[in-house]
């Protein structure tokens, strides 16, 4: 390692080494591999905690992606490394959606863990929530772009959202790293996944193209390795970076790294972020040794206007579901007509269903439940599973409608019926299961961020000063 001069706990000279022990905080990693890596010298520990992939429920309901126990297990070694080695830890999109509440919960958890471990930590929280009034103003001013489907949000989408966050870029992290306030851990709200990696690198005067490209790969942890999984370490130079798996026996190869650039991205060559467009179409991937790959040739085009991607979710109803199977070929042959008759029948008992205030959706497993209209196969299965999903303005209403739908599927007659004692094999009792509120993304739009002062920062000391020095040495 070259000689370092620490500012805010992070090296400003290259190369710097950044470890991401897991692609998602709470998904687990091997502590021994992590410590071996830390022992070899690490300048920053960066881990992502959020995603929109599981859907809007985390944002709309404030639920976390994994349990507190999983977060605690993954956090403990990182916090100890931060305390013992003074290695900064950066956590982004805390809790899954990165709302203020989830950031605070994460900081509270860190407080508890530090207290249990018997050390103190200086924590900076960066909040990513966006006031609905700000979005309303920008929407009215035409400063929100339509999404990929060409849709703009409605006024109701904005005011009706349970929570609105924006994917912060590198600047809020830079602000913390550059401040005079000493910080051990940064817990950020919703962030563009590579932002903390990029912030650490750019501070060390790494080319932004390299900084963003490295972050883009590292934020997924060992997904760029062969086999996949575990963590990964980046050694970052001003104009290139190298990737090495944290896990022994895993390897980064030119193909495994290039292939990862495809993952979860709508296109592999141009990656649009809050600060600009990363162009990796002319990148080269070179094997340094049998498990290390060097990446270079990335380009970065800064955007003229700073932009932010908004995420907003609303509760759109309450759901009750049932599941069961049909084996009778006479019924399978006319299932669509049969289910339509059931819905019509139940609509007669519940006007909200007939008028679309409540709705029922079926998924016919064995036929086209997975792909719907995209399904090219027309094969007739010997048995099908039916998931019934009733959504209504209240949980009670959803359960009432769902019960009638389930009874209809079980007992309604149909042309050619031979089995007159029941149409439906039900595996669960109770047969209807209320599953609570259901959310939808009402905002997933890019907003012009020019002139906005967002992402407030809060500094806090957590844990307790160590009284027993021997306990610390015991690790």
């Amino acid at each position, binding site marked *: 390692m070259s000689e370092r001069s620490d500012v805010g706990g992070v090296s400003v000279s290259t190369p710097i080494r950044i470890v991401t022990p897991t692609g998602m905080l709470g998904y687990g990693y091997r502590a021994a591999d992590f410590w071996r890596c830390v022992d070899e010298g690490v300048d920053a520990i960066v881990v992502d905690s959020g995603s929109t992939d599981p859907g809007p429920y985390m944002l709309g309901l404030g639920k976390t992606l994994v349990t507190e126990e999983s977060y605690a297990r993954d956090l403990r070694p990182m916090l100890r490394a931060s305390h013992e080695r003074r290695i900064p830890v950066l956590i982004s999109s805390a809790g899954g959606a990165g709302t203020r509440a989830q950031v605070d919960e994460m900081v509270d958890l860190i407080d508890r863990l530090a207290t249990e471990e018997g050390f103190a930590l200086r924590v900076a929280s960066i909040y990513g929530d966006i006031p609905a009034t700000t979005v309303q103003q920008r929407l009215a001013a035409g400063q929100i772009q339509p999404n990929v489907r060409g849709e703009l949000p409605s006024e109701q989408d904005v005011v009706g959202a349970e929570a609105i966050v924006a994917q912060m870029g590198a600047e809020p992290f830079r602000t913390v790293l550059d401040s005079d306030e000493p910080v051990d851990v940064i817990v950020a709200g919703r962030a563009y996944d590579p932002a903390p990696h990029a912030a650490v690198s750019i501070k060390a005067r790494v080319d932004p193209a390299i900084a963003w490209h490295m972050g883009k790969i590292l934020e997924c942890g060992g997904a760029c390795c062969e086999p996949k999984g575990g963590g990964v370490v980046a050694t970052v130079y001003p104009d290139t970076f190298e990737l090495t798996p944290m896990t022994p026996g895993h390897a980064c190869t030119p193909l495994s790294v290039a*292939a990862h650039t495809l993952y979860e991205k709508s296109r592999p060559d141009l990656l649009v972020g809050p600060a600009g467009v990363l162009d990796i179409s002319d990148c080269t991937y070179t094997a340094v040794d049998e498990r290390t790959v060097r990446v270079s040739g990335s380009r970065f085009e800064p955007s003229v206007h700073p932009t932010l991607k908004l995420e907003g979710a609303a509760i759109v109803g309450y759901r009750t579901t049932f599941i069961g199977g049909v084996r009778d070929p006479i019924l399978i042959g006319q299932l669509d007509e049969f289910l339509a008759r059931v819905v019509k029948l139940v609509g007669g008992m519940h006007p909200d269903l007939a008028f679309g205030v409540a709705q029922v959706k079926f998924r016919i497993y064995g036929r086209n439940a997975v792909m719907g209209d995209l399904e090219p196969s027309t094969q007739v299965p010997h048995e099908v599973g039916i998931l019934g999903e009733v959504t209504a303005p209240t949980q009670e209403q959803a359960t009432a409608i769902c019960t009638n739908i389930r009874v209809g599927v079980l007992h309604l007659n149909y042309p050619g019926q031979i089995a007159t004692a029941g149409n439906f094999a039900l595996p669960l009792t109770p047969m209807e299961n209320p599953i609570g509120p259901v959310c939808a993304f009402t905002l997933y739009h890019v907003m012009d961020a020019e002139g906005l002062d967002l992402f407030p920062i809060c500094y806090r000391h957590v844990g307790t000063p160590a009284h027993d020095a021997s306990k610390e040495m015991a690790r």
Partner: protein
Amino acid sequence: MSGTVFPKSSVALQDLAKVIRSKNAGPYEITFDVMFTDPAVYAHVRDSDVLTRAAIAKLYRIDDADITYCSFFEPALAFKFTLIRQDAQGKQGSVGERDTFGAQQHAPLLDIQIPPPRRIMTTRSVPTRAADADWFRQVLGQYPTGVSVVTGIDADGAPAGLAVGSFTSVSLDPPLVAFLPATSSSSWPKIAPGQKFCVNILGADQESVCGAFASKAADKFAGLSWRPAASGAPILDGAVAWVDCELEAVHEAGDHLIVVGRVVDLDIERPALPLLFFQGGYGSFSPHSLALRDTRFGVQLQLVDRARPLMEALAQRTGAQVGAAYCDGSELTMLASAGTPTDPHASAVAIGQRLPVLAPIGVWWMAHATDTQVQQWLQGIEAAELRARYRDALTQIRRTGYCLGLTSVHTEVQALVNSRSGPGGEPTAEERQLIAGLALNPMDYVPSGGDARRPGPDVVSLWAPTFSPDGEVALGLMITGYPRESRAAQAYAEDLLALTAEVTSLAAS
């Protein structure tokens, strides 16, 4: 190609790719990755042009506009495309969601069939040339076709017709034929509604008829006489043959149609040579090297096949036509011919031509026949003295090894051939009389029969036998149509004898 071995038949994509997957790219898009490990396999799949934006749109039954990205990506040896989530997939993670992570939308890609690699020749050179209509015609013009006129009756009851070069037989059971009119044809649409048509096979002398039907003339039947077939479709006078059909099926094939007809009736009108289309022009069939195909002459035809190169060589060297015949004692059959006659007065050897073996026909064979056979042969000659002179002539011919054919006799024989219908059978009284009339001077057939003019300019053909290993006459070889001015007939006789000697030794080997 780094030793990559591709199968010869199509292979499913799942057997070529290492990864085929789908996943959300944000809440509105699902992205698909197909990844390879072998650069050669990657290049093969890319170059097969199977994975295209259009193919993806068709497979997933979505609008092209809903594909936001679709491309191969060389650094990762991958093909990638991204779809906008469809309404049927619901709002991501919300009511009606089928696949929250978009992780199972890849399955239809697994069975996409990738064809085997094409050879360089077909991928590089042909597509450009194959698209060149002139080149296509020039190459396909190397394949000769017959010429037919397809006729029918239009909705107004008027005859209609078109010239086609694509008539072909299709099936024996049921009896089907076909032809291929251009989709731009103005005549076929007139005939098609009637569901019936007649194919007229044109003769070599009917090029003008072909021209009329190939033209855009208002009345293509002007100046032509015809009669209706059973279907009502016209049978043109002078056609070599006709095939009357009911419409069986019409298939589309590029800018042409394949019209299949079920044969209702068919006949040969006259035994004439057909009109041919070849290398962009019309012509007729010129017998060059042909052989009769008749199972009764199996042994002889095997010998003819072996003798053919020698016959062709001689025909080419001398400008003559060389024929081969077989005689069974009662009938003479022309089995084969080679070359084109230079002498326009020599009439073409007609393969399959049969003649009753009565004096003087078959002199070359009778010179080596038994006494009983000769007696039979001479039975039509009443004068005992003439019969005795024939026996003398046969003796001399046996000694010289060949015999002569005369212009006058040739003409008479031709008339006989034209009047004789069908093979075999006893000669009619009329034929007997005609043949007997030829048998006036046996010495006419004898070379050097004490006459200095033998063989002279009036000799149009020469005949000589070949022998089987047991000494029996195997074939009669004949040379005719040679240029009589440039060489004496004697020189051609020597050529013929050299040929029969070679064929005799061929038969022995």
